[in-house]
């Protein structure tokens, strides 16, 4: 049985890679992180993998919204029931 491959960036640039994948703008003091990732195939693979995941999750957020017409009508009935069970203010 083979162990599933689990790719993560090198430890010392993990935050940098997570930031870049999340769309954070790199800053000049991250030049060392940038240089490392540029020359490290493992970090490049991890960055591409995380970017793919974040993009697919963002795409899923944009998918068509739920049909709520049935639920809305049941909610309305339930609210009427609450109204009928609540004491009159008068």
């Amino acid at each position: 049985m083979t162990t599933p491959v689990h790719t993560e960036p090198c430890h010392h640039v993990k935050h940098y890679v997570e930031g870049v994948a999340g769309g954070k703008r790199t800053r000049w003091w991250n030049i060392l992180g940038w240089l490392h990732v540029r020359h490290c195939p493992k970090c490049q693979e991890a960055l591409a993998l995380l970017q793919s995941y974040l993009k697919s999750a963002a795409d899923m957020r944009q998918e068509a919204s739920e049909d709520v017409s049935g639920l809305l009508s049941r909610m309305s009935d339930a609210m009427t029931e609450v109204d009928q069970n609540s004491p009159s203010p008068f």
Partner: protein
Amino acid sequence: MELQAIAAHSNADHIGEHRLTNAIASKQIKNTEGHSKPSRSAFEAMISKELASFLRLAKRLAFPDEARAEDFVQDAIIKAYVGFQNGDLKLTPQTGAWIRKSIYLNFLMHRRSEKRVRYVAPELLESAKTVQPELHANQLSNDILAALEKISDEHREVIILIDLEGIEYAEAAEILSIPIGTIRSRLNRARWNMANLLRNSYGSNP
């Protein structure tokens, strides 16, 4: 209104077909003597605007049990409505957050009551795949749902709230009752797990 206290109270009603009705009937509505009732139409307007997002959140938490998801939403909204009628809950931009937290607490109590390590019964998951192939038009979204089943409850929750529902870190911290720093670190670990589980779905790139 103490949400946890209300949610715990209503957990006793979470049995049988008429639990929602019973929950409503058992609530003692405070007499709002001398005041007219708050406007139902204002509450309904807020609900109809946000209902789709409430339902989507509940469905992702309860996946693939859609009927249960609707129960979570109905229960949360009725609790909010009772609070609104009592004068305990005001309609503010935070009311939606209150309802999302209530949905999550309903889900959490249900999961605890199930006393199972895995929340989704495998046969239920299998039937959802066969009965609802159109669940998501995008195959990648189906793969994401399948990957969610393979990660821990803690990781699944932050992924659903933040990555799939777009809820802000601060609200997610409030919903899960954990510090925002924990949200950040948990989310990062969860994202690496998800990305690696989905590696094959992304094909050769990466």
